[in-house]
């Protein structure tokens, strides 16, 4: 009998540690690029619209409270919108999985609606929903909805033919097949959608703020104010903050995925 290699159960700390070591080369590259950027900016090799990293750091130190004052509502709106999008997309995805005949219709309708550029749609939404928090949340939800729906539909319909036959022989009911087969095997696809949507929701929230969504508080507002006041370091600070929020949102969902999906997806493809 072949002796199986007993793979140690991945602890969260262990897998994160492995994640960190994987990121070391990337972080080193980013550090090198920042150093190059700093060097080029202080030597005057860059246009005046580009702030030096040290200036951005000083701006951050001086205006940390202001930055948080504007970032917190953006994050809150993005999170609320993201949760609404996730609930709606998962619900619709489950509906499609149990009623495969409507899959095509739902998919194409969602594709058409989501192909409307959010930058174009947002001003209209601001007119409809006014400049409150709702519009910011709505745009964040719209930005996140489609990637999650695509992940759900792809995931729920991607079950292996062998597994389908197995469930047919076992006389599994539709909901049992969904619960025990479609849902678990869809997880990698659903999480791919959830990760992409987390970054999109941050972006959606900021786009809404550019059109005045969320009143006077928001990272988007801070960004436009800095831009029109020609405050170059502050503009760059808001850009970097937006990027950090997107990466962070993606990373949080990725960590949740590592906890939830502990099996290797390749084995499903191999017809396990």
């Amino acid at each position, binding site marked *: *009998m*072949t002796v*199986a*290699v*007993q*793979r140690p159960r991945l602890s969260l700390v262990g897998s994160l540690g492995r994640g960190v070591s994987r990121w070391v080369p990337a972080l080193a590259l980013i550090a090198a690029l920042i150093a190059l950027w700093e060097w080029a900016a202080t030597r005057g090799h860059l246009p005046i619209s580009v702030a030096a990293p040290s200036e951005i750091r000083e701006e951050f130190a001086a205006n940390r409270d202001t930055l948080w004052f504007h970032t917190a509502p953006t994050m809150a709106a993005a999170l609320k919108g993201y949760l609404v999008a996730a609930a709606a997309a998962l619900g619709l995805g489950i509906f499609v999985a149990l009623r495969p005949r409507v899959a095509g219709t739902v998919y194409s309708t969602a594709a058409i609606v989501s192909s409307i550029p959010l930058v174009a749609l947002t001003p209209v939404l601001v007119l409809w929903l006014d400049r409150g928090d709702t519009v910011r949340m709505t745009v964040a939800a719209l930005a996140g909805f489609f990637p999650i729906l695509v992940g759900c539909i792809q995931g729920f319909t991607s079950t*292996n033919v*062998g*597994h389908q*036959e*197995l*469930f*047919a*022989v*076992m*006389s*599994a009911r539709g909901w*049992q097949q969904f619960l*025990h*087969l479609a849902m*678990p*095997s869809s*997880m990698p696809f659903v999480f791919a959608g959830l990760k992409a949507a987390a970054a999109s929701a941050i972006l959606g929230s900021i786009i809404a703020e550019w059109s005045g969504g969320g009143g006077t508080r928001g990272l988007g507002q801070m960004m436009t104010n800095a831009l029109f006041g020609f405050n170059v370091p502050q503009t760059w600070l808001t850009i970097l903050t937006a990027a950090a929020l997107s990466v962070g949102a993606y990373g949080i969902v990725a960590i949740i995925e590592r906890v939830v*999906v*502990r*099996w*290797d*997806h390749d*084995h*499903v493809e191999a*017809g*396990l």
Partner: protein
Amino acid sequence: MHDDHVVVDHVTKRFTLKRDHVIALDDVSLSLGRGEFVALIGPSGCGKSTLLRLLADVVAPTNGTISVGGRSPEAARKDHRIGFVFQDPTLLPWRTVLDNVRLPIQIARGRAERGASTPTELLALVGLQGFEQAHPGQLSGGMRQRVAIARALALTPELLLLDEPFGALDEISRQQLNLEMLRIWAETGTTAVLVTHSIAEAVLMADRVVVLSARPGRITDIIDVDLPRPRTLEAMQTQEFFQVENAVRRALFGGQAQVAS
């Protein structure tokens, strides 16, 4: 001779692919006694896997009828009385080995007779004690197929269908599993149908070897295997074994020679 546990009566199965009709099985009749082990052998496209899927009610016949224990295959399937071992193990990688074996019990939700053995005992029966909490990804191909066998036995099947279950394995694992399968079959007394490409495997396992021809799939010969049980690997080296093997070989390849002449 048989008390006719499974009866296939003039069954034809036609598949329609775009506008082409493919006759997978043409007027096939066969009956199996209770507790009998029958092997189906034949060239690719002879419909042996289709016949297995008809018995499992995964596909329906175009013409003819099938009965399993006096009722339709659909009724037998809905009673959770059909065990199926596929060519691939088809385990669920997110479940542990033990939870994979438990799956049919969970699906039946108490509406089916439990197996004589618990899932843990079944895993011991297929030689996997100590691996209950492992995940399929941690096992070798042979071990995964053992899990699939244990799963097929979780709910006392009255009909065990084996679709080239050891086809993807190496010769050593394969013969080991053949013998284990025979031991389990003898213990459970279930009726078994094995689809195989291997003449030696068919003769080693079966009471009767059903030989099919391809396009259209028809039964060309049925060869009785009058070898004593329990069968062993030593028995495979006897003159009697070779004689039955050669009879199957003649039925498989002699048929083509007759068509050619």
